[in-house]
């Protein structure tokens, strides 16, 4: 269970194993839904600060799951655990059991590069490379050897842009810099860039917070389209957005997972008082 298990922690580990068993019913209660990723007793420390506390959460396949909660509640931290982006932060330590299709993603034998090819990420601020639109999309396929020749590469770029709904807008300017697009187009370019590697899961960290409502609507539409093929996890500050795009929602508060359920259920019938308080706008 716990990654840094030793004798002294045995008791604690046993307790957490019990908790994990208990939470199996809580975290993934619809047993007929296939779970893409699972997290058990996940803890994250930044130096001495305990940022994420004993989180158990299952992420269903081919659905959109949104993570909501007030600022600093650990939802982005949890998201970044899913593709080990926290590894690059100095002084950050992760323990717990996190699996992708049953495979331990914190296994020392696992190559983190392979993991990130399977679990893509889109950031809060659009961050296209200062290269052409084509090269932005082609970068991932190139480093992973997905396209063997240039016609295959063009094929990958075209389909990725089409799936990201950007093709019609950029097909005549594939060789202009990606940084010259509008904010919303840049964010869809980043999504297309992530799709081009054919990931299984796409993590989105507040992907619309820097965009205007029209661009946001386009991204939300896109997410709905993408969930046919991909598992999507999105961190959002907008509860309306969570309600619009996601099938399941998890509410985080002060580093702990408070509640997770079908999105409808969370918004209409929250079990926890804190969830209720947050979604009705009493704090946040």
């Amino acid at each position, binding site marked *: 269970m716990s990654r840094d298990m030793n004798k002294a922690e045995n008791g604690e580990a046993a307790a957490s194993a019990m908790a994990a068993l208990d939470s199996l019913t809580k975290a993934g209660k619809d047993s007929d839904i296939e779970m893409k990723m699972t997290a058990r007793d996940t803890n994250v420390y930044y130096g001495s600060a305990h940022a994420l506390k004993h989180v158990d959460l299952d992420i269903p396949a081919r659905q959109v799951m949104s993570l909501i909660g007030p600022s600093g509640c650990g939802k982005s931290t949890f998201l970044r655990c899913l593709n080990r*982006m926290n590894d690059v932060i*100095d002084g950050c330590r992760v323990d717990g059991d996190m699996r992708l299709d049953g495979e331990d993603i914190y296994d020392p034998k696992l190559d983190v590069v392979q993991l990130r090819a399977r679990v*893509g*990420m889109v950031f809060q601020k659009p961050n296209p*490379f200062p290269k052409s639109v084509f090269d932005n999309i082609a970068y991932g396929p190139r*480093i992973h050897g997905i396209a063997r020749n240039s016609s295959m590469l063009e094929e990958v770029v075209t389909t990725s842009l089409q799936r990201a709904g950007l093709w019609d807008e950029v097909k005549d300017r594939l060789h202009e810099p990606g*940084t010259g697009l509008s904010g919303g187009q840049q964010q869809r370019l980043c999504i297309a860039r992530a799709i081009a590697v054919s990931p299984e899961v796409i993590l989105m960290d507040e992907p619309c917070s820097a965009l205007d409502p029209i661009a946001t609507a386009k991204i939300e539409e896109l997410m709905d389209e993408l969930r046919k093929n991909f598992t999507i996890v999105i961190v959002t500050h907008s509860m309306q957005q969570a309600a619009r795009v996601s099938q399941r929602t998890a509410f985080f508060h002060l580093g702990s997972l408070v509640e997770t359920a079908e999105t409808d259920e969370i918004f209409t019938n929250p079990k926890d008082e804190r969830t209720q308080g947050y979604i009705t706008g009493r704090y946040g």
Partner: protein
Amino acid sequence: MTDTSLDRGAESLVKPDLSAARIRKRHRAEFRFKAYGLFAIAVAVAFLTLFLGTIIVRGIPGFFQTYVLLDVDIAPEVADPSGAGTPDSVRRGNYSVLLRDALLQDFPDASGRTERRDLANILSPIARFNLQDEVVADPSLVGQQVQEWFLMSDDADRFFKGITTADMPADQRRLTDQQVAWLQALEAEGKVETRFDWNFFTVGNSAEPEAAGMGAAIVGSLLTMMVMLILCVPVGVLAAIYLEEFAPKNKITDIIEININNLAAVPSIVFGLLGLAVFLSFFGLPRSAPLVGGIVLALMTLPTIIITTRAALKAVPPSIREGAVALGASKLQSVTHHVLPLALPGILTGTIIGLAQALGETAPLLLIGMFAFVQEAPNGILDTATVIPVQIYSWADQAERAYEAKTSAAIMVLLFFLISMNAVAVLLRRRFERRW
């Protein structure tokens, strides 16, 4: 309790003072501040103008030399005493006599040893070597009469440049009244010409200021800079990339960072002492060689290059690195594919500025023996060489007044190199600068 204090606060709330006097005071303060700034800039510009103006006014004559047209009768008995007619035999000819005789043709009234010597002295001592070289190259000239331009001495040169004049008292100029009369006569006959001196950029140092050039120093500087670049750019850039992108942040890297910053502040002469002690005394490398100069300057410039490269890497936004890593790029791939190309203009700018700093450096090179009298341009990095700033320093030290112009001219050449390098750096920055 709290209520009353709150009430009092509301009552005593002071309205902002919007009176005209207060606003005038503020405007005056702003005007004063602007005036101080303008004054400071004016002082700086005045000093710069004075500095550049002095150098240019003094230096421009240094780029010109005066020549005199002479009909030289290459008498066989003087030019080729043995009569063999081979390059070796004509090399033994007495060419100063030929030149003096040519001058005596123009001024037959010069009599007596002193007067004839004075007459010969209006020509540069180098002139006879020029004639000799020519005859050696073509021995068939012996017995013929040639009409040619010959280099005049520094004193005659200064006379035609108007630095010494006929009106000056004879004891304040290095020309006798008789010499002045001769020079005026030559000028009246149209036999004197002051021309742009291309030799200044090609020939080496000379004991005669009229024949001295900075060609050897330019070649020496180029070789030294080449050695320096080859050594310090790869080392500096790689060190910076490792420290900035890969090294863990801990005590050891902190200490390394502090020491790099300290090293950048070490006076350059200390690096010269290091070069003397380590490279010359311990490793026994040759003195005065561009190799050692380059190594010493590379050590001196390394901190500058590391610091500017790290700054350039830091300026690349972390979102680019995250974007690459999130796509499954390894750390090295994210650096080589994305960060380095974006940081390259900054790295180049830093390198050029470091190079310019090293090009103007004198003190450490004096210590490793590059303060040498170098007549011939060095052929390799192990040859004896000097560099432009050291050449300037050695000319500034000379007694002959004519070196004054040469010194300023050499400073102009050095400044030209430095300004063009900095201009390239600015252009690169402008051209490749990216905004996010």
